């Protein structure tokens, strides 16, 4: 018994997944800080822009896109094809930044986003420094609010990972939660940390079945996670929607819903909703190692013409889009 008692303190233990995940988040934060300090390509803002933006994120991107004159055009977020901000050159990574990213594993993996306008399962790769717009058509996002500025958002997140020897993928979010809407009897979520209470946000997903009087033909479950894990071989399904959501108080209701709002107003409103939002994707390899990538969510004001995609509507109409940028 003495031997067994002593052995319990020296025997090997297994690190739980939740510990690994939270440690990975911390390492990822450290790497981000390190890369930011070394990044030589940060574009300095003009003094007037700094004043107007109140130090909000997304202003670097705002400057890079060719700015149109402020106008009273109502920006509409419509289903758009994917596009790159072509005027921006990819950020050149320093050797150290590259090394830091691969500190835990040398296996590469790519993150992809499925944007509107692409066929079937086609996706666009998220490359460092190149923002990509995600589908914000009317069926894949929901933004609500009241006159006191209490707002909420729920935006579909069509992300996927590709690589060799990947076993599982974990997504974590630093603000709000993931809303997972899926067939209760066919969940693809392997594990996750569920929020103890529901968020008061809109719901994105769940088939509307006309033949069934509007009711979905299968039981729908809606859950909220701060992080969740998927099997690599089963990252999506027709009956699963993975969305990012949060309840946020914005400074002025009229930024988003005001009748006379400008594109800049709308962008500021949207930016306040997702300010500082980062999604971390951790890829777990079959050999037990893992690697993480951070995706910053931002906004951009652009036109279809500037962005280089065909828009069935007016190519010169300003639009405010949500974008992902891999750091």
């Amino acid at each position, binding site marked *: 018994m003495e031997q067994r008692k002593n052995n319990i303190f020296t025997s090997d233990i297994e690190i739980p997944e939740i510990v690994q995940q939270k440690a990975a988040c911390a390492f990822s934060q450290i790497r981000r800080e390190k890369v930011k300090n070394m990044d030589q390509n940060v574009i300095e803002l003009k003094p007037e822009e700094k004043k107007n933006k109140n130090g909000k994120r997304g202003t670097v991107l705002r400057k890079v896109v060719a700015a149109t004159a402020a106008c009273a055009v109502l920006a509409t977020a419509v289903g758009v094809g994917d596009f790159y901000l072509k005027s921006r050159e990819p950020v050149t990574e320093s050797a*150290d930044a590259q090394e830091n990213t691969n500190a835990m594993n040398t296996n590469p993996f790519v993150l992809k986003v499925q944007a509107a306008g692409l066929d079937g399962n086609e996706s666009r790769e998220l490359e460092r420094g190149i923002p990509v717009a995600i589908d914000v058509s009317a069926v894949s996002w929901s933004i609500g609010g009241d006159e006191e500025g209490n707002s909420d958002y729920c935006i579909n997140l069509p992300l996927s990972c590709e690589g060799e020897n990947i076993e599982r993928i974990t997504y974590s979010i630093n603000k709000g939660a993931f809303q997972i809407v899926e067939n209760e009897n066919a969940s693809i979520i392997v594990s996750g940390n569920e929020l103890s209470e529901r968020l008061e946000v809109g719901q994105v997903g769940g088939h509307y079945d006309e033949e069934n009087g509007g009711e979905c033909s299968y039981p729908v479950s809606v859950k909220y996670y701060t992080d969740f894990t998927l099997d690599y071989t089963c990252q999506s399904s027709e009956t699963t929607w993975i969305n990012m959501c949060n309840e946020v108080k914005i400074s002025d209701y009229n930024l988003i819903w005001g009748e006379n709002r400008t594109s800049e107003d709308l962008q500021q409103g949207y930016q306040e909703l997702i300010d500082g939002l980062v999604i971390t994707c951790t890829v777990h390899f079959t050999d037990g190692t893992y690697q993480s990538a951070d995706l910053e969510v931002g906004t951009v004001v652009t036109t279809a013409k500037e962005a280089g995609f065909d828009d069935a509507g007016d190519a010169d109409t300003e639009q405010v889009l949500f974008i992902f940028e891999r750091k």
Partner: protein
Amino acid sequence: MQKNELADIVKKATCKDAEAFTQLMQFYMKNMYRVALAILMNDEDAADAIQETILTCWEKIGTLKEVKYFKTWMTRILINHCYDIRKKSVHTVDLQEWEEPVAEDHYNLEWKEALASLDKKYGIVLTLFYSEGYHISEISRMLKIPPSTVRTRLQRGREQLARYYEDTQADVRYRKRTQTERSK
């Protein structure tokens, strides 16, 4: 990892080499987990404490005076974070509001059961002494308690653990005997 190799990595980490720092913290991950679990008794809180410790260590690594004291320094930071988390979670919860934890704790069950059998103050002392190999004087400084208190807690912790294992063995013998009697 060899001592020299470890010392080199610590030196690099103190110069804010993120890769070296990551490697260092990964090397000590199991140590941190053991200590955090001994205080907090659940994986979720232990994960939070470890996360906070990694960030604090990164922030303050420039203040580390001697490379050879890195582990002790890190463990002290971890213990402080564990106590902070424990303080925050000590509150009265209405039974009607309490919900069972969603995630199941499957890891290291025997270790957790053994820790659960001990008074909170004994578990951490036994862990630091037997698992982490600290001397009584080091444990005394880390936990800010006199060395005599460390010795007392070690002894009482050992006694409690011995009783736990005796009871466990007795339980097994009782079940076997009962099964045997029923099968007659």
